[in-house]
């Protein structure tokens, strides 16, 4: 069942509200701008598709157009942050942090100034744009940087909260957003704290006679997380107890929650719209290999580039669908029993 403490939208299965996580950015950054006049937004010629145009409309004097120049985008932001502003610099994730990673490393992370890289159109579901525009490596690139907070919101509402929280943090950060409309799982009441994973689903063990050996913990991140909740429902029907944990912050990783929930379950699945190397799967594996070695099955993009296509086709082709998560859970449980 949905974890009541997470205060998720009760209609998320049957009649979900649909919105993209980038829309959450658009709302959140206007709110952050109202709360703190140090907030500025930079755009590299993609203001509408990054949703930066909402801020532009509200605060034209604090909106900076840099043109098609992602290296300049990051370094101008670094200079502004060094001065004392809180710049959110926006582009597609394949270009920023894709093209300007070294600038981010030196002038933001090592410099330790609070510039926020906002990578839009991350993941597979960028619609028809194709592999050049599908960022599937960005979490790995950014998670490797010291000083860098890395957040991958699961929906529009969480994206909004992440922007507001980061504006208050005073730290370098990467926020990952997606283009596609997906179910909005969280509500205004859902807790959000940087670095704190949230349990979205926890099977009622009473249904299993108080305990069962058929247990799995599913760690998920990003806007396709709704699929893990559908998988949890399916698994419960097959008498498998499930915990779904939304790991919105990949760095710093909530190792306490990951170790606790993985150990309680004894079998682990990770799920992400990202290469398996270096993303959430990699992060959870690093954490558990050290603290609680357990069988892990990773569901994500398996060392391939993306391609043009609609959401349904891509989710199926790249094996990110509900049956893939269900199969991974069963495999992890069977490995745990050996």
């Amino acid at each position, binding site marked *: 069942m949905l974890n009541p403490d997470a205060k998720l939208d009760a209609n998320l299965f049957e009649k979900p509200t649909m919105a993209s996580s980038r829309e959450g950015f658009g709302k959140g950054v206007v709110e952050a701008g109202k709360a703190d006049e140090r907030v500025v937004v930079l755009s590299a010629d993609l203001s509408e598709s990054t949703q930066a145009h909402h801020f532009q409309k509200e605060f034209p*004097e604090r909106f900076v157009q840099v043109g098609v120049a992602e*290296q300049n985008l990051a*370094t101008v*932001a*670094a*200079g502004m942050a*060094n*001065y004392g502003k809180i710049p959110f610099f926006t582009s597609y994730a394949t270009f920023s942090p894709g093209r300007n990673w070294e600038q981010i490393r030196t*002038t933001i992370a090592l410099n330790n100034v609070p510039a926020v890289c906002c990578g839009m159109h991350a993941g597979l579901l960028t619609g028809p744009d194709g592999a050049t525009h599908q960022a599937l490596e960005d979490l790995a690139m950014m998670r490797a940087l010291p000083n860098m907070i890395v957040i991958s919101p699961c929906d529009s509402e969480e994206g909004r909260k992440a922007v507001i929280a980061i504006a208050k943090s005073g730290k370098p950060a990467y926020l990952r957003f997606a283009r596609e409309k997906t179910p909005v799982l969280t509500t205004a009441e859902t807790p959000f704290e940087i670095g704190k994973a949230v349990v979205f689903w926890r099977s009622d063990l009473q249904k299993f006679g108080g305990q069962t050996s058929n247990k799995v913990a599913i760690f998920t991140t990003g806007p396709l997380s709704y699929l893990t909740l559908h998988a949890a429902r399916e698994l419960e029907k097959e008498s498998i107890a499930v915990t779904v944990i939304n790991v919105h912050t990949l760095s710093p990783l909530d190792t306490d929650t990951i170790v606790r929930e993985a150990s309680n379950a004894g079998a682990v699945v990770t799920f992400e719209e990202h290469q398996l190397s270096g993303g959430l799967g990699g992060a959870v594996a690093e954490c558990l290999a050290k603290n609680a070695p357990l069988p892990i099955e990773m569901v994500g993009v398996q060392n391939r580039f993306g391609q043009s296509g609609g959401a349904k086709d891509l989710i199926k082709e790249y094996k990110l669908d509900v049956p893939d998560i269900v199969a991974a859970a069963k495999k992890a449980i069977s490995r745990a029993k050996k």
Partner: protein
Amino acid sequence: MLSEVEIKKLALKANDVRQTIIQMLAEAKSGHTAGPLGMADIFAALYFHVMKHDPKNPDWADRDRLMLSNGHITPVRYAAMAHAGYFPVEECMTLRKFGSRLQGHPERDMLPGVETTSGPLGSGVSQAAGYAYAARLDGKRFRVFCLTSDGEHGEGNTWEGVMFAGKYRLSNLTQIMDRNNIQIDGNTEDIMPLEPLADKYKAFNWHVIEIDGHSMREILDTCHEVESIQDRPTLILAHTTPGKGVEEIENDYRWHGNPPGKGPTDKIPADKQKEVFLQRLAEVRERIENS
């Protein structure tokens, strides 16, 4: 207008800075020699006359900012800062050593007054432009100086920043380019021709002033003149001599990245390099004093 006596004082400061550069590089057994020696006059002018700053209060909010884009010439900055009173000159001898605040390439978090982290080339103009843009938003009056190398104009990021500063008419930004014509692998016009640099900057809507980067009076007059340019950023295109002050190494690109004791030995044997370099600088000092 500064008197000849004051100009001479600044030239002597530059000589102090050059001597410290040689001592610290020899001690570190690593680092760049040509660029720092070539920029000593400009750094002396900035730290001892042009910039508003307070060595005892490096975070003073209204200070002028100096962003060094080509971080590898940081020995000249460290030496100038030390002589200006930011920290003891002896600390210069910790350059590039474990535990030192004087990292091989400068780090903002390590040493107050450094302003920004640099080393990877081509990112300074953009950072300085972002800084100047933000300061102007808040109505701040301080100046932002960005020091660049000619070689790093091979980087696309440099030109992106130049275009940005031109578009937004950042008149509070002054770039001083160390036009010394050398880079690691050879002379700039052989590696990747940069000329016509002045025309390129003018085409990007910058005001351009070319100077002799070793004429203290020209440096000072130009920095003063720049304050009257209110509608665009300014490039001071400073023609400098790499290795300035040590005639045996002047204009020799092989001295771009070597410290005394590890450079080419065709003119001076390795074990004599530090001694000879300091001797040459002492001779220069004598000439300044007697001028």
